[in-house]
C-alpha cells in the first residue's frame, strides 16, 4: 500500500532515493524488510517536499480564484462598468499581496499566543539552505496570502458600479493589512478563539464572512445604485452584461476551492493526510453540487423559471458552507450542508432587496450568510467543537469586522468620498475613471432601451 502511494506521489527516481538505493542490491527478503521499515514513515525531507507542494499547488489554485471573482463580477455588472470591475479586481489582488507581506502575515501569525493580534512588521523568509520545519516558509506565506486576497475580492462585487477606485483600494489595503489579519490571528494564529475551541477549517467565517461583513457595511454606507429601487419601493433589476463570463467565473472559483479547502489540510506527507485531502476534495465537490441543485429546484418551484445567476450563487454558497468543515462530514452530510447553502441564496437575495441593500453579485448571501451557516454546523460532524463556541466565534469576528470596517468606510467617505457622481454612474465608470471601455465597438451611451 505504501509502495503504491509512493509510486503515485513521487517520480520513481525520487522514490528510490527515499527508500534507500542500497535496498536494490540486497537479497529479496532483506530488501523487502528494509523497504517496509523505510516506507512506514516518509523521511522528513519527503514530508517537507510534499507538504510544500500542497501549499504551492493549493496556493496557486486559490490565487486563480481572483480570476474567478473578476469574471463573475465582470459578467454581473452592466457593460458600461466592466473595465472598472476588472481594474478593481487586479488592483485589489496586488494590494492584498503587498499588504500581507508588509504587515498582514506577522500580524496574523507571529507571537499571537492566545491573544488578539501578532507582531508588526514584514515577514522574513529564511534562505533555502536554512529553511527547516515541516514545509518551506515561503510556501506557507504564499498560501496564507491568497486567502487574504480572497477576502478583499468578496467586497468588490457587492459595492460594484457606484464606488470610486481610490477609496475602494484604500479600504482594501486596511482590510488586507490589518482587519483580516487581526480576526485571522484569533483562530489560525493560535489566538484566544483557538484556545477556546472554535473551529473553522478553511475559513467560512475567517475568510468568507469577514469579506461578507465588510461588504455589508460598505453597501449600507454607500447606498444602492441609482434606479435599483423605485420611489414606491419596487425592485428594478439591472441585469448583468455577460452570463457566460459569470458562469466561467463560477467554474474557476469552484476549481480554486479544491486548493482552498484541500490545501487547508496543511500537510500531505502521510497516508492519513493524503487521504484527508482527497476526502476534502470529494466533500467540497458534493457540497457545491448540492448548492446548485437546491437553488435550481427552489427557483423552479418559486418563480417557475430558473435564474442562472442564482444557480451560480448556489454553487458558491455550497462551497462556502462546506469550507468550515470539509473533512469530517459524511458525503451525505456534505451534500445537505451545501444544499442548505444554495437555499439560503434563493431566499436571501430577494430579502436583501426588500431591505434595499444593493448587492450586485450576491456576495452577502453567498459569503456571509452561507459562511455563518457552515460555521454553525461544524459540531454536527466534528466532536471537538460546540455550538456555543462556534456562535461566540461568529459573533466576535462579525462584531469586530462590522465596527472596524464601518469606521474605516466612514472615515474614507469623509476624507475622499466613496461614490462617483450621478452623471458618472449613469454614463458608466469605464468612461470617466478608467478611460477604457470594455466593449468599445458596442456603443450604448449608458442607456437601455
Amino acid at each position, binding site marked *: 500500500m505504501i509502495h503504491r502511494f509512493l509510486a503515485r506521489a513521487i517520480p520513481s527516481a525520487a522514490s528510490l532515493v527515499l527508500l534507500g538505493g542500497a535496498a536494490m542490491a540486497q537479497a529479496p527478503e532483506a530488501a523487502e524488510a528494509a523497504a517496509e521499515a523505510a516506507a512506514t514513515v516518509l523521511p522528513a525531507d519527503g514530508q517537507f517536499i510534499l507538504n510544500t507542494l500542497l501549499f504551492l499547488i493549493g496556493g496557486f489554485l486559490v490565487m486563480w480564484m481572483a480570476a474567478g471573482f473578476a469574471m463573475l463580477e465582470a459578467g454581473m455588472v452592466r457593460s458600461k462598468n466592466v473595465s472598472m470591475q476588472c481594474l478593481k479586481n487586479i488592483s485589489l489582488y496586488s494590494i492584498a499581496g503587498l499588504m500581507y507581506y508588509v504587515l498582514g502575515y506577522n500580524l496574523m501569525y507571529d507571537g499571537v499566543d492566545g491573544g488578539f493580534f501578532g507582531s508588526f512588521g514584514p515577514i522574513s523568509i529564511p534562505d533555502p539552505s536554512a529553511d527547516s520545519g515541516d514545509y518551506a516558509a515561503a510556501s506557507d506565506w504564499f498560501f496564507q496570502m491568497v486567502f487574504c486576497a480572497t477576502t478583499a475580492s468578496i467586497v468588490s462585487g457587492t459595492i460594484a458600479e457606484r464606488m470610486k477606485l481610490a477609496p475602494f483600494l484604500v479600504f482594501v489595503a486596511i482590510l488586507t493589512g490589518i482587519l483580516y489579519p487581526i480576526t485571522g490571528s484569533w483562530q489560525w494564529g493560535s489566538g484566544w478563539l483557538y484556545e477556546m475551541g472554535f473551529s473553522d477549517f478553511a475559513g467560512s467565517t475567517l475568510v468568507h464572512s469577514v469579506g461578507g461583513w465588510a461588504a455589508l457595511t460598505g453597501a449600507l454606507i454607500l447606498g444602492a445604485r441609482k434606479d435599483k429601487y423605485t420611489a414606491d419601493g419596487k*425592485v*428594478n*433589476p439591472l*441585469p448583468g452584461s455577460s452570463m457566460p463570463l459569470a458562469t466561467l467565473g463560477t467554474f474557476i472559483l469552484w476549481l480554486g476551492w479544491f486548493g482552498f479547502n484541500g490545501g487547508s489540510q496543511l500537510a500531505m506527507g502521510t497516508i492519513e493526510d493524503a487521504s484527508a485531502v482527497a476526502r476534502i476534495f470529494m466533500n467540497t465537490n458534493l457540497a457545491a453540487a448540492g448548492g446548485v441543485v437546491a437553488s435550481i429546484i427552489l427557483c423552479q418551484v418559486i*418563480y417557475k*423559471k430558473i*435564474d442562472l*445567476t*442564482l444557480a451560480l450563487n448556489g454553487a458558491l454558497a455550497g462551497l462556502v458552507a462546506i469550507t468550515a468543515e470539509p473533512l469530517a462530514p459524511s458525503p451525505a452530510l456534505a451534500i445537505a450542508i451545501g444544499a442548505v447553502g444554495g437555499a439560503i441564496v*434563493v431566499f436571501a*437575495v*430577494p430579502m436583501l*432587496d426588500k431591505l434595499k441593500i444593493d448587492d450586485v453579485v*450576491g456576495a452577502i448571501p453567498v459569503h456571509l450568510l452561507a459562511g455563518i451557516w457552515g460555521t454553525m454546523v461544524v459540531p454536527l460532524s466534528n466532536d471537538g467543537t460546540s455550538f456555543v463556541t462556534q456562535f461566540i466565534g461568529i459573533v466576535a469576528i462579525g462584531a469586530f469586522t462590522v465596527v472596524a470596517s464601518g469606521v474605516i468606510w466612514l472615515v474614507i467617505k469623509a476624507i475622499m468620498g466613496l461614490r462617483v457622481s450621478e452623471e458618472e454612474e449613469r454614463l458608466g465608470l469605464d468612461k470617466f475613471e478608467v478611460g477604457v471601455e470594455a466593449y468599445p465597438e458596442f456603443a450604448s451611451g449608458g442607456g437601455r*432601451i
Partner: protein
Amino acid sequence: MKIVMAIIKPFKLEEVRDALTALGVHGLTVTEVKGYGRQKGHTEIYRGAEYAVSFLPKIKIEVAVAADQVAAAVDAIAQAARTGQIGDGKIFVTPLERAVRIRTGETDSDAL
C-alpha cells in the same frame, strides 16, 4: 415610386428577402429596431425580481419600388412575414419623390 417599410419578426427576414427577390426587387435596407404594438412587452425575472421588457426586438426593412410594383411587394412581404401570432408586425407605404444611383447618376425608376 414608393417606399415600402415593414416591421417584421427578426426570424422572418430571410423569407421576406426571398419573396421580394422573386418579384424582381433588387435592393433592401435592413435595420435592427425595438418597439411595441399590440403585443406589448413581456416580463422577465432577474434574481427574484420581475421586470417588464417593454420594447421587443424587431427588424425594419425599407424597399423602394416603382408604383406598379407596390401592391405586389406589399403582398409578398405580408405573406412571407406572417405567422398568424401576435407581433407579426406592420407594413407602411409612403411616397418617394426622387431617387439617384450615386455611381452612375441615374435617377428615379432607373435608379431602383
